[in-house]
């Protein structure tokens, strides 16, 4: 990690940051109404009051910001969990968080939900569902104050199955209108009418990035194994708890606002690991940027491919993400 790799780190970060800006500008321009780049830039700097301004600021920019927050958040949750479990198949949803959130929402839709809080109702029930499942998995996964990672993983997978079975049960017994609501939510979307949610999720996601960076050195030590990390002075038991709660909290918040958007948390960390290596100090920031780019791009595709019909963004992330991943694996030099 001499001078060379520091330059390389800076290079990757700058490259991805610039790419993010380009993708965001592109995404601002395309859609049902095409706005050329000059007009986008003009509206961003001066043009309050024009019709383009309204489209850009009321419709497209919030989606882009939400895509940044959720794409980045899910990606670093994936990096943290894969690093902690030292298992490349773990992703933010493996531990049952998505199942819990979906269950919360399904129950809310079917039971009618608490009236009066309107817009907040679905995200709140999703968040409560996620928190409930996280607590359950955590309680069942720890024994006598120590976190057994394999146990935690198995419990998470089992709880996921139980949650999805319960959702299917609810769906089988529900009315058609409600069914549509549940399916729509489960497929995930970056359309979020409430701008205060977007602000909140952006803060949480950026805060999560900083927190994950602080633990990046410990994650490096942990990639040697728990005993080795312990001998390097890392308080392993405390670290595992903090990382689990951190990743779960970020994921729970993302899921409760956007619904279940799969694949970002699995694929982005993998691709970045192939590109920048296994050092979490660079893996975390680059994965955040790449996750944001990936989700904004996928959402843009979802909006324009079959316009005016909007595809569920989860469909695009799965199709695009899966293809990219297979390509990355079949390249020469891939380590799998």
């Amino acid at each position, binding site marked *: 990690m001499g001078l060379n790799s520091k330059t390389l780190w800076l290079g990757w970060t700058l490259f991805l940051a610039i790419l993010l800006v380009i993708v965001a500008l592109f995404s601002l321009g395309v859609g049902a109404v095409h706005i050329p780049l000059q007009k986008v830039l003009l509206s961003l700097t001066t043009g309050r009051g024009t019709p383009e301004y309204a489209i850009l600021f009321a419709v497209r920019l919030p989606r882009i910001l939400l895509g940044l927050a959720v794409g980045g958040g899910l990606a670093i949750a994936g990096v943290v969990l894969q690093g902690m479990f030292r298992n490349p198949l773990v992703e933010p949803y493996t531990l049952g968080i998505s199942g819990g959130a979906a269950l919360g929402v399904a129950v809310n839709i079917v039971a009618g939900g608490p009236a009066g809080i309107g817009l907040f109702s679905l995200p709140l029930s999703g968040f409560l569902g996620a928190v409930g499942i996280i607590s359950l998995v955590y309680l069942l996964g720890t024994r006598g104050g120590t976190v057994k990672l394999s146990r935690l993983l198995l419990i998470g997978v089992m709880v996921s199955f139980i949650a999805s079975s319960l959702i299917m049960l609810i769906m089988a017994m529900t009315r058609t209108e409600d069914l549509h609501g549940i399916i729509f939510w489960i497929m995930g979307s970056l359309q979020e009418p409430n701008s205060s949610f977007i602000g909140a999720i952006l803060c949480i996601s950026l805060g999560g990035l900083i927190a994950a960076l602080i633990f990046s050195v410990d994650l490096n030590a942990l990639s*040697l194994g728990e005993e*080795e990390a312990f001998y390097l002075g890392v308080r392993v038991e405390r670290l595992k708890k903090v990382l689990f709660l951190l990743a779960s909290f970020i994921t729970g918040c993302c899921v409760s606002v956007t619904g279940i958007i799969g694949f970002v948390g699995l694929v982005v960390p993998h691709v970045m690991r192939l590109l920048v*290596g296994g050092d979490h100090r660079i893996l975390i920031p680059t994965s955040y940027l790449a996750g944001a780019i990936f989700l904004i791009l996928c959402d843009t595709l979802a909006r324009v491919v079959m316009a005016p019909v909007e595809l569920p963004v989860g469909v695009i992330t799965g199709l695009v993400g899966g293809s990219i991943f297979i390509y990355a694996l079949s390249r020469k030099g891939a380590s799998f």
Partner: protein
Amino acid sequence: MGRPMLEIKGLSCGYGKRIVLHGVSFQIKRGEFVGIIGPNGSGKTTLLRAIDGLLHPSEGTIFLEGRRIHQMARRSLAQKVAVVTQSPEAAPPFSIEEFVLLGRIPHWGRFQLLETEGDLTIAEQAMVLTGIASLQERRMGELSGGERQLAFLARALAQEPRLLLLDEPTAHLDIGHQVQIMDLLRQLNREQSLTIAVVLHDLTLAGLYCERLILLHRGRLRKIGPPQRVLMKGVIEEVYQTRVRVMQTPGMGRSIILPIAGNGS
């Protein structure tokens, strides 16, 4: 002379309810080169794990330079004690240099993310000392068994420990690499007065390099002292349940332990 580097008093410890070590007591002085020997399952690895705080003693106390290790912060213990574990896990995703630099972590602040020039110099020295400086760009997964062991040793040295613990560092190595590792340990011990405690299975090798041997048997301290006093036919035959010949090298006064083929009892 001051306080001993390590003092263990009446140590009993194990895994959950299964107690592996029973009332072990001994001292290691500063700058000593001590070998820990004993049959499989006699508690050697458990002893190392207790010394570096991974296992909590059910009874007894461990003092490092006069301080109870369980009252020390993890980080400050890792600044003083480094461990080279037995057959470490699958290849970590790092280059040799990145790997050795991980040894600097105990000396970093909570919010430190980047290594300093000083860290780089120390890691460089550790790689030069272990003779792997020319490999520093290689990935950990590309190393041979001998090079791998040297990389783990280099990482431990980068910790700048006062006490170095090693768990069978010569296992799975050919005779040339065994001697290379043991010579290196002796050099570190003599030139940098690093205190070393090493678990060894090869009794002849242990007798050749160590100033004192600690013989464990069924979780108890069976014998402690200079190699000639520990590596005695009667003791070895009893503890290892096999017949051996013990010969003295002419001049050097070192013991060679030769198992007698076909006579395992």
